[in-house]
């Protein structure tokens, strides 16, 4: 397993948002995370790279790195954990004072201290991969939402993470440009990237994911291959949720 999470808890003040999450993600697999609004999907994803600090539990990457949150981890351990994952945000969060290619180069140059010329080549190839070789030198405000999100994906890929985290990468986009971002993510899946994707796009999840996790009320209620979980859910809450999405009234 690339990622193993055990008994993860997180609360905000009085509100328990994650109430003991156990899950594992196999190397090279794509995991889709679905669930109602407020169920804790974003919080869980942010815990995986310590943007949100879990209160309790452990996060382990393969055999070589295990971090327990039962006592506060050190800054160094948090950085180590963070550098295992790349994150793509719902609202892109590109650096507005940097061009597309500078956004992509920032991690390798500043964090990984790689040589600039080599990073430039890497960034160019990543921007080409997401179909933006023509837009490399534009600033984020000169790009459409879909283009910005693709830069966001290239920026996350640039640090060569072991795991890619996506939090509703298309939900801020107009319907007609959702496809261009999903297309990029599909390519990454075919290249063998390990990914955890929070999404409301059930069709996309069905097509791309190897594994679907349904979260409700801070628990994993049900998980399994998309064909089973989406087509033949066992738990009443899963059924109810899927019904509501498929037949909005």
């Amino acid at each position, binding site marked *: 397993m690339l990622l193993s999470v055990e008994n993860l808890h997180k609360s905000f003040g009085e509100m328990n948002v994650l109430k003991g999450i156990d899950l594992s993600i196999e190397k090279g697999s794509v995991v889709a995370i679905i669930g109602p609004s407020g169920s804790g999907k974003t919080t869980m994803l942010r815990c995986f790279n310590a943007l949100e600090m879990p209160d309790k539990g452990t996060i382990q990457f393969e055999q070589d790195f295990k971090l327990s949150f039962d006592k506060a981890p050190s800054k160094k351990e948090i950085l180590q954990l963070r550098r295992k994952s*790349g994150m793509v945000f719902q609202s892109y969060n590109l650096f507005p004072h940097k061009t597309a290619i500078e956004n992509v180069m920032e991690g390798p140059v500043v*964090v990984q201290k790689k040589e600039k010329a080599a990073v430039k080549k890497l960034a160019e190839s990543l921007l080409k991969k997401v179909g933006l070789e023509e837009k490399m030198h534009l600033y984020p405000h000169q790009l459409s939402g879909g283009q910005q999100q693709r830069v966001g994906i290239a920026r996350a890929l640039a640090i060569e993470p072991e795991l890619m985290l996506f939090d509703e990468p298309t939900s801020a986009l107009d319907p007609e440009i959702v496809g261009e971002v999903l297309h990029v993510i599909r390519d990454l899946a075919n290249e063998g990237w390990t990914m955890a994707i929070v999404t409301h796009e059930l069709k996309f999840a069905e097509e791309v994911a190897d594994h679907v996790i349904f979260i409700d009320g801070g628990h994993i209620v049900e998980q399994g291959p998309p064909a089973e979980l989406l087509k033949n859910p066992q738990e009443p809450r899963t059924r109810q949720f899927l019904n509501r999405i498929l037949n909005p009234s």
Partner: protein
Amino acid sequence: MYLNNLLAAADPIVDWDLFQSSLWPMIQGGIQYTIPLTLISFAIGLLIALLTALARLSNSKILAGIARVYVSAIRGTPLLVQLSIIFFGLASIGLVIDPFPSAVIAFSLNVGAYASEIIRASILSVPKGQWEAGQAIGMTHRQALARIILPQATRVSIPPLSNSFISLVKDTSLASTILVTELFRKSQEIAARTYEFMQLYITAAILYWIVCFTLSVIQGRIEKRLDRYVAK
């Protein structure tokens, strides 16, 4: 006799001879004292301001507390009083500092307090998502601050900081009260000899105006440059 002189000085026609002979000493006062005083104090003040802003935003209660007291004390007292304490006050208890360094100390502390509030607000104005995007690519707090947050905060703080700078140019005239022979004190000295108060003080005003006007043009240019990555 004093009254006579005053009446003679009230002659409405500009005394061009006096204008010519007084202009250069005033400009000299500006070049020798007003401008260096402004530049040095502002540079030191900005450094103090940045450190103060970071202290106030830090997790350390002690640092934040010290910074808060400093800002409150400077903002709650008149600049003229601060200047007088540093020059006359300290001298009276045996710590004699020359006029120019005294002025630099007072103005730097003053700029430091006011500008720290501007810098703090501009750091807070950068969306939380920017910190997170930096952290998500593995940046330390310091790297995110230096590479992501401060450049954006700088853009936000340029207009109010430019205003502080322009105010400082004018405020340096207060250094005349502690014997710094800057632009305004030069005009006072000449006026004391010639009684041409109106003409000399108007000349001083125009000189300040020219400097401040030039600065505001430069301010506009800088803002335009920094705006290049922001949607119009």
